[in-house]
């Protein structure tokens, strides 16, 4: 309890009012141990509260996400981890009656300010969902879609990007002969990698994975995890997972959520070997959840 309070308090002290037009100074100690990674955070959440109607789902969340690192968000069902990740690309504003307080900064700029366009934001902060959700279109059209809605009309460029994205998503060799087949004919694991390729095609800076392996078999899961480790060389990655082994395998930093609170954040090895908070320890040793 004591440690969690410390982390929360330090987070609060690290909070600085942001200027819409410029980067803000971030207190580098706000995350305790995670700071050994040193880089400026790509995304920072400051005192984020979120409500579904009158029900409070997140309580004063403070967390930083570092570039070229994988941050895993773990916690039991209903702890707010999916709710939180969906704030980072403003997907939750589609929920009627929801309300958000606090600040979420992307490269120091508040993504919640009226000056920030949701579509522009989502281009920079891509998302891969819990269940593979390819469009009922061909493989090629699925990946080209993001480019087309973002105004790319050059056919050669689109083709190039489609091939490139499929290669990056480790899918090219498997389906290069099926580009004009329906994406719905692919296996679940292939569909999920197609969704990753679709996300990569619009050149995001951050990729949010919301339990990307929840509906996949172990082999497909291993492929996705391998892919995440490759992608982190270029992207800021946030992954929500209820699978602690997965968090341990793919992430550099782990954050533990419980009932809308961020209990603890730290280097993944530390969180799993020497959690500071009793509740984190109980969760990762399987005493609840």
């Amino acid at each position, binding site marked *: 309890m004591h440690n969690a309070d410390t982390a929360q308090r330090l987070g609060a002290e690290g909070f600085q009012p942001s200027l819409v037009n410029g980067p803000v100074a971030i207190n580098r100690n706000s995350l305790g141990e995670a700071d050994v990674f040193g880089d400026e955070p790509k995304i920072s959440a400051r005192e984020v509260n979120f409500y579904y109607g009158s029900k409070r789902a997140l309580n004063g969340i403070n967390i930083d996400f570092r570039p070229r690192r994988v941050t895993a968000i773990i916690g039991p069902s209903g702890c707010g981890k999916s709710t939180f990740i969906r704030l980072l*690309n403003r*997907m939750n504003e*589609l929920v*009627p009656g929801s309300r958000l307080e606090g600040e979420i900064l992307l490269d120091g700029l508040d993504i919640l300010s009226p000056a920030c366009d949701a*579509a*522009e934001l*989502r*281009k920079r902060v*891509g*998302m891969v*969902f819990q*269940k593979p*959700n*390819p*469009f*009922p*279109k061909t493989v090629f059209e699925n990946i080209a*879609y*993001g480019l*087309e*809605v*973002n105004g790319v009309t050059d056919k050669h460029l689109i083709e190039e990007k489609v091939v490139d994205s499929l290669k990056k998503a480790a899918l090219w060799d498997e389906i290069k002969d099926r580009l004009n087949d*329906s994406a*719905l*004919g692919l296996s679940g694991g292939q569909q999920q990698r197609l*969704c990753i390729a*679709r*996300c990569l095609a*619009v050149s995001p800076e951050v990729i949010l994975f919301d339990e990307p392996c929840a509906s996949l078999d172990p082999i497909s899961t291993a492929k996705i995890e391998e892919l995440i480790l490759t992608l982190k060389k270029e992207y800021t990655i946030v992954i929500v997972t209820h699978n602690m082994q997965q968090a341990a395998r793919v992430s550099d930093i782990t954050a533990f959520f419980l009932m809308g609170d961020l209990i603890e954040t730290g280097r993944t090895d530390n969180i799993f070997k020497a959690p500071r908070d009793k509740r984190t320890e109980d969760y990762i040793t399987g005493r609840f959840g």
Partner: protein
Amino acid sequence: MKRRDIVQKLGFSALFACMAANVLFLGGIIFFIAARGLGAINWAFLTQAPRDSMTAGGVAPAIVGTFYLTLGAIIFALPLGVACAIYLTEYSPKGWIVNLLRISINNLAGVPSVVFGLFGLTVFVKYAGFGVSIVSGSLTLGILALPVIISASQEALVAVPQSIREASLALGASQWETIRKVVLPAALPGILTGVILSIGRVAGETAPILFTAAAFYVRGYPDSPFSEVMALPYHIYALMTEGTHPEEQTAIAYGSSLLLLGLVLSVSMVAIYIRGRQRKTYNA
């Protein structure tokens, strides 16, 4: 045999009897119409105009009239109905107003068609000054088709998984782009099914065109949207209630009925085929 086994047997036998009665009625309609109408149908029947005060010749002008009326109704009702369905399912804030609208639209489908006919007479024929014409008839039939098209479109739109809307938005597409490029194409087969079913309904309606478009006999084919026309359903009605040669007219009425039945059934078949293909796309 135990008592509950006997009860079960009786129960299922009763259900079977009800089913058989249904098949009998439906089969009976098709059988009697076919038996009496088949003799009247030949190439001349399909291609010629009526002759000798409705006792000979064909029903070609009525086929043409029904085609124009149906086409006009769909041209009017399709964009309007689909747009309304898109607004209600994709855009309008959810709440009691939308629910009220939905209930009203569903109730509109239950309004007797003769009431639509009177409405058409007052509004299109008299007030708008279109006269008894294809335009008035098409608009009246279009209003009749609207609830069917709206309901079918709403169902088709709701059936599109929310997850692919999210996928589109998450790629930086606007809501408008998402609807136009992802949701509508996915819903199209369902919408088309509704349209085709409403074509069947519209083509077979008599009451809405009774005062707004149809005539017992028109010389030649319609030459403008403001012409009066002959139409198959009304032609059947007229043959059975007017004229001076009931015997000959009845034979032609059965022939026309068979033709109309065939048209409506084949249109429904197309709808079933398209719906089947849509299911395949989703479950591949």
